[in-house]
């Protein structure tokens, strides 16, 4: 049987090790996406809506963070969480929690930037109407986030995709411990170096499938969301 055939068999037979790795990957990345979104969506919307001190600086910083190499993020979080680091007493280095933190930091600027981009034009369109109704700041934030929901969800999916595909940071702060912090990407890197291509390829197939699925959903959301956009 070819390597591809063996990999496919691992996927089809729902191999326990494989399922465990995929499950942990999804749990870590989904949690990171949720945490990053809870912070990035309101902040991205606020940056789009209001002028306030240090706004431009915040925009520059958040945009720069998008280009931050994952290994650098991993290193910084490693230093913070290591025994001698300021957060070392929490003892979360080499745990899924550390991986969630690293992925959250990586996703945050992406979700923030995409939210801001989505809400900027909407705020221009809605401003007069919301001003006329004296809409409160909180209500304005909620209204604009809701009405930009399709673009915001697309941003979330892009962030989730980035988290799931990330390897540099999670391998540093997670340690790639079998059955504990080993996720799809780190397993692929490790198993490939060991020559165990079946498992690496099986995970590659799953990762690729998830990427295709995410893009299909993004495409569908874009197409569905366009029905709500005024084009005239």
């Amino acid at each position, binding site marked *: 049987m070819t390597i591809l055939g063996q990999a496919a068999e691992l996927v089809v037979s729902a191999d326990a090790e494989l399922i465990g790795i995929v499950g942990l990957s999804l749990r870590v990345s989904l949690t990171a996406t949720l945490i990053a979104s809870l912070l990035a969506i309101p902040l991205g919307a606020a940056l789009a809506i209001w002028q306030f001190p240090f706004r431009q600086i915040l925009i520059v910083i958040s945009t720069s963070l998008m280009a931050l190499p994952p290994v650098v993020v991993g290193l910084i979080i490693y230093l913070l969480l290591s025994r001698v680091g300021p957060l070392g007493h929490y003892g979360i280095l080499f745990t899924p929690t550390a991986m969630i933190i690293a992925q959250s930091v990586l996703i945050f600027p992406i979700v923030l930037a995409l939210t801001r981009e989505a809400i900027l034009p*909407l705020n221009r*369109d*809605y401003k*007069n*109407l919301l*001003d*006329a*109704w*004296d*809409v*409160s700041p909180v*209500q304005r934030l909620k*209204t604009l986030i809701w*009405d*930009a929901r399709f673009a915001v969800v697309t941003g979330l999916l892009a962030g989730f995709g980035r988290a799931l595909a990330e390897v540099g940071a999670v391998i540093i702060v997670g340690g790639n411990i079998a059955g504990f912090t080993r996720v799809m990407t780190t397993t692929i890197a490790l198993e490939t170096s060991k020559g165990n291509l079946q498992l690496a390829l099986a995970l590659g197939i799953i990762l690729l499938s998830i990427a295709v699925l995410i893009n299909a959903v993004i495409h569908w959301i874009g197409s569905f*969301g366009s*029905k*709500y*956009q*005024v*084009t*005239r």
Partner: protein
Amino acid sequence: MSGLKLTNLSYSVDGTELLHDISFTQASVGISAILGPNGAGKSLLLSLIHGVIKPNMGRVTWDGILADKTKLSRGFVFQTPIVLRRSVRANLAYPLKINGQHSETAIKAMLELSHLTPLAKQPAASLSGGEAQRMAIARALITKPEVLLLDEPCSNLDPASTKLIEAMIGQFVAKGGSVFISTHDLAQAKRLADTVLFINAGQLLEHTAARDFFDGPETPQAQAYLNGDL
């Protein structure tokens, strides 16, 4: 009817005076048309009367209270209808929702008034220009304002759409509401208006009964405007 009073109202942007020393009072129920050539300041005056914009100088009051403090008692409809990215129904429900209210009866009544009941569940973005403008008017009326301000509501609309919008305005006025409408459509102003405010280059040149204005305007600028020369 709420009494409107403008006192020495001026408005400037970056040193350019767009409205200059406008003063008038108006206490009558009915429809006031704001007329004037492009760039005269009609939309700006309407926004100041509503209270959505505060004047640089002077005051706008309704029953003695500054306009921006009471703007929720007035509805504003913009020239290009602002369509929320929601269904038609959700657009109508929005003004109630932001005030913590919900009324199926009011939503149903506004859908019927605007002839949009069959389209209630459609994304509002799918509406035609006329339908979107009717939705915007219904959305402004759902909170039961005392005054409705309309900024060229029928520009670029076909006669049938204009007729439906005028019917909505007529029903509002019949129930005791008052309307300020800016328009370039002189025929529409003649059909609807009880009072005319004529402005040119940021100055209020005439404030008079509509019949008097159309029969014999007092200023050469207004005469030129009616003749199509301004």
